[in-house]
């Protein structure tokens, strides 16, 4: 595992889910360049469900135990855990 490519929250998530290897997780992926056909094949072989956001950002839906292999792929720069955001309405009524 190349921990340098993981954001701290993803490292924490991997630790929490270490006994649930089949758990799927959503990731935001930074790439060097757009994915090639060969790289697409690599991801398909690993059963990675992927969607293109733009040329350098992809969305991966992967099993936890695949992340190790993804960090070894030189064309993947960084893996960030997808977090949930909040709506910005403010509740303050008396």
């Amino acid at each position, binding site marked *: 595992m190349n921990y340098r490519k993981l954001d701290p*929250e993803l490292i924490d998530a991997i630790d929490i889910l270490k006994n649930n290897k089949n758990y799927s997780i*959503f990731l935001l992926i*930074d790439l060097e360049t757009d994915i090639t056909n060969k790289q697409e094949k690599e991801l398909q072989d690993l059963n990675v469900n992927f969607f293109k*956001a733009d040329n350098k*950002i992809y969305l991966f839906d992967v099993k936890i135990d695949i992340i190790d292999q993804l960090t070894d792929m030189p064309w993947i720069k*960084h893996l960030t855990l997808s977090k949930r955001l909040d709506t*910005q309405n403010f509740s*303050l009524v008396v």
Partner: protein
Amino acid sequence: MNYRKIAPELISLWNSYNSKFGSLEEYKNIIDFYLNGQYELYLNGIIFTNKKESRELLKLSGISINYDSPELKTIKFPINLLEKLSHYDEIDYIFPSYRLSSCLNLVNEKIRTIPFREKSHLTGNGVIIGIIDSGIDTRHESFCGRILQIWDQTLNGSGTREGNFGKELKGDKLYESIDTFGHGTHVAGIAAGENEIYQGIAPKADLVVVKSDLSEFKIIAGIGYILRIAKEQSRPVIINLSLGGQHCPHDGTDPLSRFISNCSISNQIFCCAAGNEGNFNFHARTELPTGSDGINFLINQSLPSFSPNIQNKPITRLRIFGWYSGEDEIRIGVRSPNGNETPYCEIVKDPTQNPEYLYTLPEGCIKLICPDSNSWNGDRQFLAIITSLRTGELIEKGKWSLLLEGEVSKKPVDIWIIAQNHDEIHYSSNIISKWNLSNSHKIGTPGASNKAITVGAFITRTCWESICWEGRTIGEIEDNIAQFSNPGPLRDSYPKPDIIAPGSAIIAPMSCDSMFPERLKIDDNFVVLSGTSMAAPVITGVIALLMEKNYKTGLTPEEVKEWLIDNCYLPDHLKCKWDIKWGWGLIRLPLD
């Protein structure tokens, strides 16, 4: 005619109607009337009555009664009956029904929407407004026929090209998607609702809606979907994001903010809420050395709060995000309320070694993650996580400290503390060190996107009457910046927020599937909400008007920002061009 029983404006309308040279044009936006054919004028009115026989009297006169109570009735009548009505003893007084859009909806009054639109003839026609939110009430009268498509990511289905989850809905299938939270409907209504009284900023813009669980993964997919639809129809698009998170470097380099910046090109504009954590002490900026005290924060664990501005919710998990320059190296540790400390943890420079350190103190479990500098902004970060010894229980209350050790820092260190009560995120950890004296650097993702327009909130209204006829208020000062609105700038000093807009007690469409408490409801169709969530769609609507104006030439994000900066103002006492809360100022639409 008994003129003592008739409101002056109604007398004036009567005189104009009966005069050869009178014009009814000046009353069009003031009094609720209409012409039946060329000459017969009907109007809606309100009358005070003193006898129950007045009901029969009105009916015998051929006048229809809408609202009927013993002392007050609303009626529709031909103006030719006005003289007859004025002579009835049972009727005390006759008012016209006034058009209230410019008064009740203070957003439009404050930013001058109505005169701007009347002068420019802009309505948002031809522009797509994208809403990524909790969904939309497709049956609400305010959106009739203008919702083009919905991607409901929460329904079972084969999804879209951008993600194989959820269901794409069009036409008569739109009704399959509902908005049970109500936030998305309200936001869409502010930007593009069409209603006589509570009108949105761009009432003729079309809507493409993504109903999402608000995870970054699905938001990015939703953005891609909206942009594709707009491109397929060759139409300009402005996407509203009234959502946010604080788990980021606060410099626009997080994936979502970067994606938005990448997608911000001509005719593709983004508008984001600045966030509502302005009152909470969850950020500190420091430099090394901090001394033996570190950065202290107080866990109260839901003591009763007498100030409505202070959150005091239980905390089961605490995350401390730290960001600093890649030129510095910091070792971190944690001290508990009873003085127990973890060791100081080094940065883990070997990429194959897990940078996570785990410790168990008597007061709780501490996880410290200290990776080396990352590849996408060159900075270093750390993450400290505090949980109870037993999963799900409350963290020990008292004064905790984040300890920082290293050489004298070249640049500042920023930390943000995010608390959780199980799944609910809040900001109840109160930093009490001297290092949080400046309330700043709280704009998270996606408001930190450099190319998006980031909007803070202004207070135009603090009170209203709810559906139960009870007066309600929010604890803010009118005609001022909202205390809850997040201050900037970004961590790298980039100026954010960009602009502010009305965001308090905003009345807008209510989803029929939502469950708002009575105190927030105006009637069965409209609800009051506050937040930078409400301010952002005001600017989204304004940008939609601009995009309509520049339909042929297109509009870049830079041009939009420049126009907004030219058409906003700061109060005189600030004596600056840009402020960390006000941004470049409060939007004020030009009338020349």
